[in-house]
């Protein structure tokens, strides 16, 4: 009897454990894998995310005007497994903790994250290339940064510049 009363008292003090969602917002843990956010400035369009995607939800395709690369994640095929975030070499993909995924049928084929990765011209020959993000440049070239401007050149020009000048002799 006493334990019974104790439980009742405890429950009265604690209050109901039911969350008030959808009338109030419910917090999600920071590491919850929800909707994907893509950062086109950091993306180098290496197609790694497309390759590892379990649900086949990611597509990277050259745009019609050839000025960049279209990145699309269709959330209706995404398993939210996080492989793309794990394998992304430049940390361009991040799975946010946004779990509000319910939507109406007419939005089915629009329910996607679409970004556009712009190409820039090579500083030496002018061929369009996808530039590296500042964080990746720092990762590769160290704190002093890209002194020779190699990160803004196409692979052929980079090879030529390195051959002419070399990395060690300045």
């Amino acid at each position, binding site marked *: 009897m006493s334990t019974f009363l104790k439980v009742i008292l405890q429950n009265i003090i604690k209050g109901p454990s039911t969350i008030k969602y959808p009338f109030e917002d419910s917090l999600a843990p920071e590491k919850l894998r929800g909707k994907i956010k893509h950062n086109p400035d950091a993306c180098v369009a290496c197609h790694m995310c497309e390759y590892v995607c379990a*649900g086949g939800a990611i597509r990277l395709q050259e745009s019609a005007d050839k000025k960049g690369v279209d990145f699309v994640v269709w959330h209706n095929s995404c398993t939210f497994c996080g492989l793309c975030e794990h394998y992304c070499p430049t940390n361009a993909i991040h799975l946010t903790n946004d779990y509000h995924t319910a939507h109406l049928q007419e939005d089915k084929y629009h329910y996607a994250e679409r970004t556009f990765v712009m190409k820039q011209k090579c500083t030496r020959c002018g061929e369009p290339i996808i530039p590296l993000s500042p964080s990746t440049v720092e990762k590769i070239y160290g704190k002093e940064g890209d002194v020779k401007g190699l990160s803004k050149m196409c692979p052929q020009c980079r090879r030529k510049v390195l051959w002419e000048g070399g990395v060690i002799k300045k």
Partner: protein
Amino acid sequence: MTELLQKIVKKSPWIYRINAGSCNGCDVEMATTALIPRYDVERLGCKYCGSPKHADIVLISGPVTAVVKDKVLRVYDEIPNPKVVVAVGICPISGGVFRDSYAVAGQLDSYIPVDVNVPGCPPRPQAIIDGIAMAIEIWKKKF
């Protein structure tokens, strides 16, 4: 009398679940949404029922496998009109990871008119509550 009943019935849609070849992940989440006091979908006035003949909102999970397709359609036809269909999980919506498999008949909306989609693998209970809330709104308009 009928008008009064129609007014009242709008506040309590009954929910029915169909497993169209699901891996049980989404089914567990749907059971969680209903049975665990933390989520408690019955606050919205709905209740899980055991027979399709009592149902108003139907939650369908699973990629609609070739074996289960006819059975799903049969059970779906037993649900009285007006009814609202919620596709839970990515499998009924797009086929998910089972897409293009020989054992999968295809997306759910090529056989059944779907109203609300709740993607996720499995979706969070809160997302399912969201989907059910949307379905209730649609269902109220169907009278």
